[in-house]
């Protein structure tokens, strides 16, 4: 071979080899972007096994992009976002690059990392490739709204409605934008449309109720409020994001997915997540706790009981589980079993407030007074201001005639619960029965301020308070504290405008205070109530006379005359004395 040929072939060979090296280097650079291998101790072993398989698939298939994609989703589904992002970067560097779904997942990562601008960029990339994927466009609108870009958000919400004309989240987004602009009418019009097409849109219903209330449409607002509380708003259907759930091995994330579906009222969709948590971590008691809780919410009490029992068996925290189990057992109902179970755990944790709360409730319901007393006393020693235990113990003691002890419970309730009527009513009754009316007044006044009007409770409280005012007023008058007596009489009159004793108290007090005009007013009211009573007229005449109105007084005395009973010589004599004109300072004593 000629020297020139040799050089030529040598150069060709070198170029080929150099190109190969560059190719290898580039390929290896792609491969080098794989996240470092790691063993994640916080995640279940099954995840680590799946991870190893996914990584092996990547290397075995010569960095096949679908394998890298699967790896990326595995990382992402388990909240390992940095690792997932590294995988997506590998895909991005290779032809044909990221798909719409890849961008969507990157947007999800950005949102989870509170990077709204990053999420918007990814969502725009999604929409370039898949302009009609509604969750992406909705996501873009939401992220824009949450970054304060109202106009851009409005365009995207409108674009969603162009694809799906009654899409509820987009409609609600536009409602919120209208409200931000202060355009209530536009908001209301859109809410009317939304509720007509999506009656299950409870967030919209709640917002609508508030606007209606603000606009004075109270009746419709109340109806809308009730509606919003009856329904669950279904979760947005997002097939791409939902597809990632199969790769989730993270029990916490699975529990959150469970909660999400449960909150949307989709129990059937929610429960499989608990199955998966159990599968991943058979020793965990959390799925059984959540299963019991969701079954109880759905009214499946027996299923709830079974789930809670299993949670306890797996070593779950009795302070968390037993109160829930008690609720379900009471709903079954199986009181004896509840009592047995609580006795067992209370024996192990005698200072536990949550256990005592449940155990006292069961003891009260069982009617086991001795046990209830012991447990309630212990509970109130640990936590003195609990409402139900104080009330329960008060009732037991009250019924047993131990009212002084019962009052201690009632006083604790009154101290802490400013609007509780029952405790205040009982306290009032207690003091009145002890003929110690003064301390009855305040609790009764407070109770009356919070009792629903025109109810038997209001009647009872009013009667007791009126009585208390009179007793305290009379006592004050006896101690010559007439001003105070008149004040109480006025209070009693406000409660019972037809109560003679109250007017009498007032009249007497006013006379002692030389307030004849006020005394006369009270007596006039009395006379109106008992027009045939000559004594009232006599007194009225006396008061008016002392107020310097002799003629008017005479009129009252004359009016009283024919009303005096034939046998009532004393009253007749008193009237005659006055009508004879021989009136001295002694006459009115």
């Amino acid at each position, binding site marked *: *071979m000629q020297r020139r040929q*040799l050089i030529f072939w*040598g150069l060709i*060979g*070198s170029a080929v*080899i*150099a190109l190969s*090296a560059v190719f*290898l*280097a580039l390929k*290896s650079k792609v*491969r*080098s972007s794989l996240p*470092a*291998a*790691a*063993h994640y*101790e*916080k995640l279940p072993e099954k995840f*680590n096994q799946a991870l190893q398989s996914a*990584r*092996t698939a990547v290397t075995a298939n010569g960095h096949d992009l679908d394998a890298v994609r699967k790896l990326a989703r595995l990382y992402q589904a388990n909240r390992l976002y940095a690792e997932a992002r590294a995988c997506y970067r590998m895909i991005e560097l290779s032809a044909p690059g990221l798909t719409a779904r890849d961008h969507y997942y990157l947007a999800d990562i950005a*949102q*989870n990392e*509170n990077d*709204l601008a990053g999420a918007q960029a990814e969502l725009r990339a999604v929409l370039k490739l898949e302009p009609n994927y509604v969750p992406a466009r909705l*996501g873009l609108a*939401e*992220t824009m709204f*949450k*970054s*304060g870009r109202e106009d851009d958000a409005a365009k995207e919400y409108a674009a969603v409605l162009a694809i799906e004309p009654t899409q509820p989240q987009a409609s609600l987004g536009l409602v919120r934008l209208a*409200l*931000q602009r202060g355009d209530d009418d536009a908001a209301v019009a859109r809410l009317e449309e939304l509720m007509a097409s999506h009656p299950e849109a409870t*967030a919209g219903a*709640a917002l609508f*109720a*508030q*606007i209606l209330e603000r606009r004075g449409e109270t009746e419709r607002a109340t109806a809308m409020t009730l509606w*919003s*509380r009856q329904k669950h708003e279904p979760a947005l259907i997002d097939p791409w994001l939902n597809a990632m759930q199969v790769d989730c091995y993270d029990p*916490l994330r699975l*529990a*959150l997915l469970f*909660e*999400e579906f*449960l909150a949307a009222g989709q129990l059937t969709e929610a429960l499989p997540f608990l199955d998966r948590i159990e599968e991943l971590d058979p020793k965990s008691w959390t799925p059984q706790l*959540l299963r019991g*809780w969701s079954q109880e919410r759905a009214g499946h009490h027996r299923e709830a009981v079974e789930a809670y029992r299993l949670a306890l068996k797996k070593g779950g*925290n009795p*302070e*968390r589980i037993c109160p829930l189990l008690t609720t379900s057992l009471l709903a079954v109902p199986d009181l004896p079993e509840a009592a047995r179970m609580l006795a067992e755990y209370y024996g192990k944790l005698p200072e*536990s407030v*949550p256990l005592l709360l449940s155990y006292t409730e069961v003891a009260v319901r069982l009617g086991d007074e001795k046990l209830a007393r012991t447990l309630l006393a212990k509970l109130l020693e*640990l*936590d003195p*201001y609990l409402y139900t235990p104080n009330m329960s113990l008060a009732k037991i003691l009250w019924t047993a005639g131990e009212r002084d002890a019962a009052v201690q419970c009632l006083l604790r309730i009154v101290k*802490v*619960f*400013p609007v509780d009527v029952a405790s205040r009513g009982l306290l009032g009754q207690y003091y009145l029965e002890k003929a110690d009316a003064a301390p009855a007044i305040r609790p009764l006044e407070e109770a009356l301020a919070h009792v629903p009007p025109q109810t038997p409770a209001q009647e009872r409280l009013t009667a007791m308070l009126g009585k208390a005012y009179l007793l305290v007023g009379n006592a004050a008058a006896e101690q010559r504290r007439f001003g105070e007596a008149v004040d109480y009489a006025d209070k009693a009159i406000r409660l019972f405008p037809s109560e003679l004793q109250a007017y009498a108290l007032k009249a007497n007090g006013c006379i002692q205070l030389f307030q004849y005009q006020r005394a006369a007013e009270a007596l006039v009211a009395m006379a109106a109530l008992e027009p045939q009573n000559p004594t009232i007229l006599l007194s009225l005449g006396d008061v008016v006379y002392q107020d310097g109105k002799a003629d008017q007084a005479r009129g009252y005395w004359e009016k009283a005359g024919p009303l005096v009973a034939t046998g009532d010589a004393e009253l007749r004599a008193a009237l005659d004395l006055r009508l004879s004109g021989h009136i001295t300072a002694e006459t009115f004593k």
Partner: protein
Amino acid sequence: MNFQHLRIGIVALLVAFGIYFVVNRDGWSPPVTAVKVAARPEPDQAVAPSDTLGLGYFAQRQIGRPPDGPPWVTDLLIVDLDQDGLKDILVCDAHLNRVSWIRQIRLGVFEEQDIGETIAGPAHVEVADLNGDGHLDVLVSAMGVIPPSNMKTGSVIVLVNDGTNHFTNRVLLENVARVSYVAAADLNKDGRLDLVVGQFGYIEGEIRWMENLGNWQFKSHALLDLPGVIHAPAADLTGSGNLDIVALVSQDSEEVHAFMGDGQGHFRDRVLYGSTNKDYGSSGLIIGDVNKDGRPDIVYTNGDGFDYATPGPRPWHGVQWLENLGDGKFTYHRVGDFPGCYSPVLVDLDGDGDQDIVASSGFNDWNDKRAVSLMCFENDGTNHFIPRVLAHAPTHLIVVKAADMFNDGRIELVTGAFMFYPPYDRTSRITLWEHKK
């Protein structure tokens, strides 16, 4: 092919593989178990005193009344209520339905007394001289019931100070969705203090401002029809001289709103930032100048755990700040993760001249003894924050406040505990975190 070709080929191959190995240095690492992402270590049981931010930086002292059962402190405020030069603490106790005053009667000596009458579910406390008589009145937002509820049990109550430290309840608003926030500010520049009221509610809630018409008469103006209001302080965000209102709205919204004021009582609603995670758990917001550029920034936490099926922390809980760039523009910065995070406080805790952020945890996983209850995010001087654990116990700390309690130039902390769910084995009510002697 002769040997020369072979040599060239071998050399070229070696060069190519050399490049390959240089570029792909990580490619030959063992396939698995190279790195162990391990769980956190157990905390030190006995904490030695320390001069650097971290465990042992503070000594704890319980002040005020001992707890009667699991405490439900919902808020506290450090303020010199009686204007005697010593800082006191106002406490909202939702277990006792009381607002109490932990009075510093002598330097370092505290006594607690109830003020006013009972208030159902007190949630937030502020002070202001509402009637202009020169004495600080106490403003209280009351939820009626603290756990999630749709009942219209909310109220706004002022405890009017008669000047002799005797306080009388006066109801300013009642029978509305649960009120979580109230503060006083002259929003329309008429010389009277108006009120900003946040109603958390549950499914329904709102933000309103109440125009002070004088003589204890107020007129309500709706600002936002959304439930979940946590805090809504007023500040001049743009330097316009007009007060704006910044509101943190949780529930399904998880947004920070700015109601930009024109000084005439008109406000324009803007969303400054929001999370798309409906379970974000927004829990507290304050306004302060984080980067000391003269513009008020916003610091807020997310860590609320009231309404989860399983109460407790979530991985996204933590602290963030919205940097005020001027012209009404804000940019989001994550400060750090902190499960169950509540009650942000902006303070130069270590006295190095920059603003640190202190927060507490109300809803951490308290079955785990390593769970953190009090944290300082130490500013490294460039507004990057390094998490410093201050305490693992006591637990359930829903509120923390900071002040120089003893007028010695050093910052103390005061925390309040809200023990909503077990375990109750590391209880406290009001804790003073003071420097060791």
